[in-house]
C-alpha cells in the first residue's frame, strides 16, 4: 500500500490571518466572539436536564440556562462548535492528516496518555467555567476586543502552561 504523505501545515501567520478574519466576521455578523467550552457546558446541561429537570431549572448556577423555558442548545455558540468539527474534518481530509492515532511522545504508554488527557481536560473544563471562557472565548475574543480581564487571563494561561510543562515533559519529549 502506498504511504500517504500529509501536506505541511500552513505558516502560522497565514493560519492566524484566516482565524483573525473569521473572528472579526463573528463580531460583525453575530455580535459575539468565538467560543468552545460554552457549547460543551450547554450540551452537558441539556443531558442533565433530561434526568432532573426541576433540579436543573432551580439550580442557582445552571438554572439561568433554562430561564423562561429556554433551551440551552438554542444558542449560536453551539452551532459554531458543530461547525468547528466539520471545518477541522474538511481541512484534515484535504491535507491527508485524517488519521486514527494517539498524540504523545515516545516515553509514555497509550494508557498513560489517555489518563493525562482526561486529567488535563478535567482541569480545563473546570477552569474554563471559572474564567467564564477558554482559549477561544476569553483569550482570542476578549483579546481582540481589548477586554481587560481577558488579557489578564491570557498571560495567566501562558504562565500556568510554562510552569507545568517541566513536570509533564516525559509525556511529550
Amino acid at each position, binding site marked *: 500500500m502506498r504511504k500517504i504523505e500529509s501536506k505541511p501545515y500552513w505558516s502560522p501567520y497565514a493560519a492566524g490571518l484566516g482565524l483573525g478574519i*473569521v473572528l472579526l466576521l463573528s463580531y460583525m455578523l453575530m455580535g459575539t466572539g468565538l467560543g468552545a467550552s460554552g457549547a460543551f457546558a450547554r450540551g452537558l446541561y441539556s443531558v442533565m436536564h433530561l434526568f432532573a429537570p426541576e433540579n436543573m431549572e432551580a439550580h442557582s*448556577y445552571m438554572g439561568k440556562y433554562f430561564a423562561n423555558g429556554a433551551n440551552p442548545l438554542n444558542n449560536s455558540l453551539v452551532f459554531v462548535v458543530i461547525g468547528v468539527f466539520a471545518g477541522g474534518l474538511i481541512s484534515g481530509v484535504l491535507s491527508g492528516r485524517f488519521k486514527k492515532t494517539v498524540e504523545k511522545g515516545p516515553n509514555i504508554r497509550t494508557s498513560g496518555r489517555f489518563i493525562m488527557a482526561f486529567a488535563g*481536560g478535567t482541569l480545563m*473544563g473546570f477552569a*474554563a467555567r471559572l474564567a467564564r471562557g477558554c482559549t477561544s472565548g476569553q483569550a*482570542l475574543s476578549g483579546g481582540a476586543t481589548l477586554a481587560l480581564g481577558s488579557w*489578564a487571563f*491570557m498571560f*495567566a494561561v501562558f504562565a500556568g502552561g510554562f510552569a507545568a510543562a517541566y513536570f509533564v515533559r516525559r509525556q511529550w519529549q
Partner: protein
Amino acid sequence: MRFPIEAFGGFSAGTGMLVALLIGVGFGFFLERAGFGSARKLTAQFYLKDFAVLKVMFTAIVVASVGFWWLVALGMLDLSVTFINPTYLVSQIAGGLILGIGFAIGGYCPGTSCVAVATGKLDALWYVGGVVFGIFVYSLTEPLFDGFTKLGSMGEAYVWDWLGVAPGVVVLAAVLMAVGAFSLGTWVERRSGNVLKN
C-alpha cells in the same frame, strides 16, 4: 451598513444558525491548517520548540482587533449591542492559571480538541470526556464558592480605558508587541530547531 448584523435584525433565526455554523467551519478549518489538531504541536510551545501557538493566536488577535476597533471608530459597529467579556479579575487569573496547567497536561484546549477529534486523535476523545467532567464538577460545586467567582468585578472594562489612552494606541501597541514576540519566537525556534511541520 451597521454591525453586528444580528443585533439589527438582519438575520432570521434559521439564517443566524447557518451563519454561526459557517463561522465555526472557518474556525475549525484554520485551526487544523495551523496544525492545532496535534497535541504535540500545541504543547511544543511550552518547551520553547515551536512558537505556532503564540504566532497564530496573536496574529488572529491583532488582525481582528485592527478591524474591530476601526469599525468602532467609523461608527459602523455598535459596542452597546456587542458582547464584551466582562472583567472578573480574580476568577480570570485563577482560571487562566489552572487552564494553562491543564493545557500542558491535557495537550489541547476545548476548541482545538474538537479539531483533534475530527481528525482522528484518540487521546482527544479522552480529553473531551475530561472537559465535560470538569464542567460537571464545577457546575455542581459553584454555589459553594459563588462569592469568589465575583471578586474583582469591573464590568465591561477595556485595556485602553484602564491605561487612560485611546483604543487605537493599545491596538498599535498590541501589533508592535506581537511583531516583537514573533521575532523573538523565531529566534528561539532557530536555536532549538524543532518546529513540527506536518
